[in-house]
């Protein structure tokens, strides 16, 4: 069984965002890039699935040379091979999905993992788009997964609970925190990852449908009021919430 996992390489969540000189994207200077946090759950689940079903895990990332760092991390955790789909232009999720779908088809992968959301553009749709382009079933925001033969049972998080979803292979799963505990790369894994080659290909071209007109900072919040420093401030707080804010 060929298992694929798609990872994105994103600014660390501690990044303080500054708008770049083009007025449409962030200023990358001083920004540390990391593997997208949700993709770590996707990598872990791919490895666990391989341990259960046998096969091979290929990790795929679309972007620039810099993405190799995230690919190496996945290799160090235990992925068998890695592919970098090279493109230095900014793509919307749909255009990313087109290139990924193309490569997943090349690889013949029938179980594919994504993180549920990339923490840069926060779209939370790349996995679903890719699945639909491939004609695969998908379940998003998954916190529990069982694959038994051709049958897939996945629990996905929804407002106020979970949905238990049944479907069949081939499938795309987008991983939510809680699905598993990502392993740490062992020293042996890290050494082995250094020796593995990352296959590089040009990403299949695709047009963007989303045109970014401008990027801006949210309006700053007005500094608030400190009402007091102990329980004696509570009546005034409740009064303000009722009479000024009118929210309770």
């Amino acid at each position, binding site marked *: 069984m060929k298992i694929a996992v798609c990872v994105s390489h994103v600014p660390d969540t501690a990044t303080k965002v500054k708008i770049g000189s083009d007025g449409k994207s962030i200023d990358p200077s001083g920004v540390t890039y990391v593997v997208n946090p949700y993709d770590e759950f996707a990598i872990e689940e791919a490895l666990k699935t391989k341990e259960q079903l046998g096969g091979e895990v290929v990790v795929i990332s679309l972007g620039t040379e810099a993405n190799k760092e995230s690919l190496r991390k996945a290799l160090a955790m235990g992925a068998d091979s890695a592919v970098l789909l090279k493109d230095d232009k900014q793509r919307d999720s749909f255009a990313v999905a087109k290139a990924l779908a193309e490569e997943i088809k090349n690889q013949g992968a029938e179980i594919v993992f994504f993180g549920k959301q990339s*923490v840069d553009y926060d779209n939370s749709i790349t996995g679903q788009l890719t699945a639909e382009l491939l004609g695969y079933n998908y379940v998003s925001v998954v916190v529990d997964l069982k694959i038994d033969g051709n049958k897939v049972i996945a629990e996905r998080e929804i407002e106020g*609970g979970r949905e*238990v979803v049944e479907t069949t292979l081939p499938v795309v799963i987008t991983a939510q925190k809680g699905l598993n505990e990502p392993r740490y790369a062992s020293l042996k894994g890290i050494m082995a990852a250094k020796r593995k080659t990352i296959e590089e290909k040009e990403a299949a071209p695709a047009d963007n449908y989303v045109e970014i*007109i*401008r990027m*801006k900072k949210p309006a700053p919040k007005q500094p608030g009021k400190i009402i*007091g420093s*102990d329980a004696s401030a509570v009546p005034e*707080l409740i009064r*303000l919430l009722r009479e000024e804010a009118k929210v309770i």
Partner: protein
Amino acid sequence: MANKILAVLEQRDGKLKKISFEVARAASDIAQKLNAGVEAVVIGNEVEGIENVGGYGVEKVTHYKHADLHNYSSSAYGDIIAEHVNNSGNDIIFFGNTAMGKDLAPKVAVKLNAGIAMDCTAFEIEDGELIATRPVYAGKALIDVKLTSGKKIFTLRPNVFNPGEPSGAKAEVEVKEVANPNLSVRVVELKKSEGKLDVAEASIIVSGGRGMKGPENFHLVEELADLLGAAVGASRAVVDAGWRPHSEQVGQTGKTVSPNLYIALGISGAIQHLAGMRSSKYIVAVNKDPDAPIFQVADYGITGDVFEVVPAMIEEIKKLKEG
């Protein structure tokens, strides 16, 4: 030029969810500005009160009905909406940015070869084009986007588009029985967290952080939340410590929320936490450290001990309710 906007409504257990009214209102407001028509669809089995959507400016709703459509199925719902759009000629489609909307909208986008902008928080019309504003980097920045595709899909962040008071008008509801829904992906069971309100849907959230000192003290957070009809939220620190479930985590790797009121108890206000809640309409912080970054976004703050302040808040609200 748009000619017909489609609002995709959402039901759970046969009742329209609040987001449905928000989407209906936003769609009809935008339709008016673009001089376009507007209609809605809802997919389910028995669904109560569909006609009430008329009060939010949508005159016509198509109800696609089948017993197996009571629960969500991405495969069936996706086919139905794509077919509706193809027959009806809608060029703009709105979904709620909910668990269902986020799962379903991309499927429909591929079927229609439509561009898609997720989690929109505002719309503007510039030169006759619909421009959407959406947060990126968990709200640390916003982008204004336009879609260049023929068909365009937007999902709307819950709790942002105020549906206002319904006018009392009733929508015309056309019921279409669905013959053989495609159930290749289907929900076989719904597991509800017992009686709990979800942070993503609540208009008030009371969140606890590491300052609550231990899971045994969260009864204070829960009691205050109960009194206010609020959902309980949590910082990542307390979720990672196993004090609270991940479903309650607010922040960049939890849920992004925009309630009317967010009460942060013993939460420092790390950048990843602020990212998830800074767009709340009112923020209250209780923290004994006056330099805690949470106070930079709080409208009202008390620089005190949660173990003194929270019981006093509970007492004060109880008094209010009795008086």
